[in-house]
């Protein structure tokens, strides 16, 4: 299978010596969904901006459908659709006007642009709102329109930069279905996300990005397999005993136990046998768990194991403002 998108050793430093990208390489197979996964500030959006010709890398190169983004930017722009995390559609125009405008700017003839707008509004269930300005749209409707705008010229490569960031769970599910529908028809999708569940569900291949580097990549199943066969999750009634529990369980597995609020998670290889060891240890230390679960590892566990940090936390944000803890709790809520 040829690669639809290739990135070779991309590096980018912004003003003030902020190293956004520090040698990022990956390849996306044609017709597949590739997930760039990482916390805020990891460099995901910078990668997308380089691949979509908006930004030039300091070094390294990238290709879309075989065309170099720096050498043939004009041609490359006609090959992809982009839906950004800020849903940069014009809020003073109606849904229909937005789509027609994007169609015209893709050099579709006026009647073709109008027909295409009507088609997409219908497919994205926005026909009723088609002639209202975007100011009256909900967050989910705006994201849908933004995605529709990216599809106006029927591109075979689609960049989705945090397509569901900030959406409620129902709108997120809706959008996932739409994306899955597109993929089923052969579109190559590169999506960035900080939601591990999203990458797990949509992507056939994932690159975990942190501090401008790819720290691991592979199929979601491979990443999980590297971690261990099973994750043992122990819920406790008192968060105060979590640290003690983690220390007690350190002996049962090669992998480090992690404390997440009032629960302790530890990847294990031995399955039920190790679980029995764990129960014995708990009994020995006089710890009584509220829940005791063996489950498949999730990408959350992968990220935790790779970086030593839970995804809820920002790179250096432990001391940061209330806005981040709000974001973190929203994200934690979205995981369930």
């Amino acid at each position: 299978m040829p690669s639809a998108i290739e990135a070779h050793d991309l590096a980018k430093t912004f003003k003030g010596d902020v190293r956004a990208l520090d040698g990022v390489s990956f390849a996306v197979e044609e017709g597949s969904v590739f997930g760039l996964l990482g916390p805020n500030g990891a460099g995901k959006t910078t990668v997308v901006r380089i691949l979509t010709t908006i930004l030039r890398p300091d070094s390294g190169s990238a290709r879309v459908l075989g065309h170099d983004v720096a050498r043939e930017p004009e041609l490359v722009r006609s090959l992809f659709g982009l839906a950004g995390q800020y849903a940069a559609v014009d809020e003073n125009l109606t849904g229909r006007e937005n789509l027609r405008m994007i169609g015209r700017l893709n050099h579709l003839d006026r009647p073709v642009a109008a027909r295409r707008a009507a088609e997409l509004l219908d497919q994205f269930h926005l026909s009723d709102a088609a002639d209202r300005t975007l100011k009256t749209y909900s967050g989910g409707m705006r994201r849908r329109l933004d995605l529709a705008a990216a599809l106006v010229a029927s591109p075979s490569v689609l960049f989705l930069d945090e397509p569901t960031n900030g959406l409620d769970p129902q709108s997120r599910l809706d959008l996932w279905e739409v994306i899955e529908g597109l993929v089923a028809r052969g579109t190559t999708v590169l999506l960035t996300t900080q939601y591990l569940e999203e990458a797990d569900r949509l992507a056939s291949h994932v690159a975990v990005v942190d501090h401008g580097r790819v720290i691991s990549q592979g199929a979601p199943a491979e990443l999980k397999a590297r971690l261990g066969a099973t994750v043992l999750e122990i819920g406790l009634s008192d968060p105060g005993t979590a640290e003690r529990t983690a220390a007690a369980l350190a002996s049962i597995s090669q992998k480090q136990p992690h404390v997440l609020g009032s629960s302790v998670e530890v990847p294990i290889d031995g399955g039920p046998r190790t679980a029995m060891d764990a129960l014995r240890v708990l009994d020995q230390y006089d710890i009584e768990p509220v829940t005791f679960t063996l489950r498949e590892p999730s990408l959350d566990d992968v990220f935790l194991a790779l970086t030593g940090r839970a995804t809820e936390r920002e790179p250096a944000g432990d001391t940061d403002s209330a806005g981040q803890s709000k974001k973190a709790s929203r994200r934690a809520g979205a995981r369930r």
Partner: protein
Amino acid sequence: MSAPSAVIVAPAEARVPDGTRERFRWAITDALTVTGRNLRNYVRIPESLFFSSVQPVMFVLLFRYVFGGAIQAPGGSYVNYLIPGIFVQTVAFGAVATSIGLAEDLQKGIVERFRALPMARSAVLAGRTLADLVRNVLVVVLITGVGYAVGFRVQTAALPFIAGLGMILLFAYALSWGFAVIGLSAPNSETAQVMAFPLLFPLTFASSAFVPVRDMPHWLQGFANHQPVSVVVNTARALMLGGPTASFVWQSLAWTAGIIVVLAPIAVRRYRRRS
């Protein structure tokens, strides 16, 4: 919601303009598309509609009925003296809208979305300044009507009057490019506005637009007599009210051309750099 059922994903064909002629045609249609989008925005944002319609009418009424009585106009009729000045003051104030509009598009990410489309690079600035030109045409028509209602009468003929409006609109188009530079330099629309007004006030008020320059303090007269707003106001007055025109017309054209030649390339360079 079900997945879109009829999205046809054809193998993407690379579309680059086929030769210079098509490139030129695309540049024009892209600029017109962006112009249409900007005009819709003007109409749908109440503040901008107020700014370009109610405000000039208020200025007409304010100077005609409040300040006008205290100002000795050469030639006697203050309302005739005033209206050509109002034309130029209004289009000059309107140029701030160019700054604000561009700053806002940058801030909201619209420009970034445009950058990722296969459209002509020139379309954002061309579409912005063209939309401002169209808006200025409408504003000038509005002021002509209001001016007539409060007693303004053209003293020459229809043709020189229209020529006068033409000079004003050309000057306004040049100013748009100048104020585009501010819009492209500001981090947001509020700052763009704050940056634009200190430039605008001396240009419009220390000019011959409302008050004869000979009544200003001596040290101010040198500036007030030769700065571009005065020159264009004097040109419009000569064309609409009578008097020698040739020298004023040449000076106006020189200022207009000068502003475009110097500031338009700066605006284009700023636009290319901002991403």
